[in-house]
């Protein structure tokens, strides 16, 4: 791109913020009360990972695989792509993430998740925040409640909850499961930053701190 230094972040924003929030509203309206089921499933796997880590797989992998495919199809392809052509190129990554999570669910020792392991507590807190606090952001952002973003329905909390659970995970597949949710947090964080929305900072902080926490967790001996 020529004269790239003359471009600002806002120059890449193709749509007005109100159009984006109305997309989320439309998604919520079309899917309610599926939110109860998706948050319920999310809480169930957090509980499993915390209390019975030996049974955490395959359920964690399967639930996450299902929501990544569902959000990729129902939100990214069916709604978001209409106002942002870049999403057409990004949506396949959601399906890839879903496939990888499904593989992790069934592959023995591909991934183990333990809330009691190093980094596990922090991970579970991140996941719980994604499940319960993220939908409450309208309280600070001033957006209507009807545009609350919920795990399994909207992509941002889905990525945050996934990264939280992955913080509690170990195994050879971890390295391939992290990049897509991290990339999404960065992409969506920058988009929301261009829109001047507070949510941007949560996503960018997640994209910045999760890799650091993963690296720190690796150094510590596993208990």
């Amino acid at each position, binding site marked *: 791109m020529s*004269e790239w230094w003359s471009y600002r972040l806002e120059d890449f*924003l*193709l749509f007005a913020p109100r*159009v984006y929030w109305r*997309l989320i509203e439309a998604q919520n309206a079309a899917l309610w009360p599926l939110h109860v089921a998706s948050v319920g499933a999310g809480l169930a796997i957090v509980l499993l990972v915390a209390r019975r880590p030996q049974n955490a797989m395959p359920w964690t992998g399967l639930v996450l695989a299902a929501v990544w495919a569902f959000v990729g199809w129902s939100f990214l392809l069916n709604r978001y792509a*209409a*106002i*942002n052509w870049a999403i057409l190129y990004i949506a396949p990554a959601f399906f890839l993430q879903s496939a990888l999570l499904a593989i992790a669910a069934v592959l023995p020792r591909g991934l183990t998740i333990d809330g009691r392991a190093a980094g596990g507590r922090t991970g579970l807190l991140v996941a719980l925040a994604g499940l319960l606090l993220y939908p409450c952001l309208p309280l600070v952002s001033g957006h209507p409640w009807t545009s609350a973003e919920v795990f399994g329905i909207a992509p941002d909390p889905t990525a945050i909850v996934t990264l939280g659970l992955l913080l509690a995970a170990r195994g050879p597949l971890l390295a391939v499961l992290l990049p897509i949710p991290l990339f999404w947090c960065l992409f969506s964080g920058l988009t929301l930053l261009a829109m001047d929305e507070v949510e941007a900072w949560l996503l960018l902080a997640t994209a910045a701190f999760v890799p650091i926490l993963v690296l720190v967790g690796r150094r510590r001996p596993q208990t």
Partner: protein
Amino acid sequence: MIITRRRLVEAAGLGAAAALLPTRMRAQATAPLTRVIPSSGERMPAVGLGTWITFNVGEDPALQAECTQVMAAFFAAGGRMIDSSPMYGSSQAVVGRGLERLGHPETLFAADKVWTSAPANGAVQIEQSRRLWGVKSFDLLQVHNLLTWEAHLDTLFAMKAAGRLRYVGITTSEGRRHDLLEQIMRGHPLDFVQLTYNPVDREPEQRLLPLAAERGIAVIVNRPFRQGELTERLDGEPLPGWAGEIGATSWAELILKFILSHPAVTVAIPATTRVDHVRENVAAAGGDLPDRSMAERIAAHIGAL
């Protein structure tokens, strides 16, 4: 057939609101300022309608209806040129749906762009754009942001020679690559050039606007309000008393009158989501325009705020 105001209003679903439309608009419909396209002699109302961001509303029915109402008010006020691009998300489709609802106003001047780095994709993209607009052919096609400009200009000139396109143009914005633009304007028989010009972005006055006039190239002005930054900044500031001397009743009108006061400018294409704003914008092309000294006064005043 020239589409009537009543038909437009009904088609936009405004129904009884028709009675509330100001009489000023009716006056506009009869006498918007027009400028001549040098390469053909065709006259063109001097305020058009942009679609970047404002018309990218996807499948949202309420926002689509809002866009249709903006288009209805635009045509009813005598506007003709609508500008879009395959880069603008769903904007082309939203324009297309609006045109369909309005019964395809014959006064439409359809201006779109080709925007792809692959030379061979140009023709396919143009055909896709045409389908989205739902028009038989485009009046004007422009190479967007000079991307792959040599190959796309070849395609566009070939379409024009074959009678499938009326005008060929090229665009840039925010002052980017003006040197290359100047070269292209000198070396190719362009009908239109599109660039950014307003009271605070005045660089085109140096070379590009005089060159356009000299070579008989029509000029479309984009980002008249710096994508709303200018109108937002001025919002709340009192309009100077002397604005009334040229009939400007708002900052938007004053800015557009400044732009149109340059004799090389053919059309300014502000974008908006609001019916009152589109009316105000088209109205800026009515009444008096500032002379050179008044234009300088406008630029100095706005620049100082």
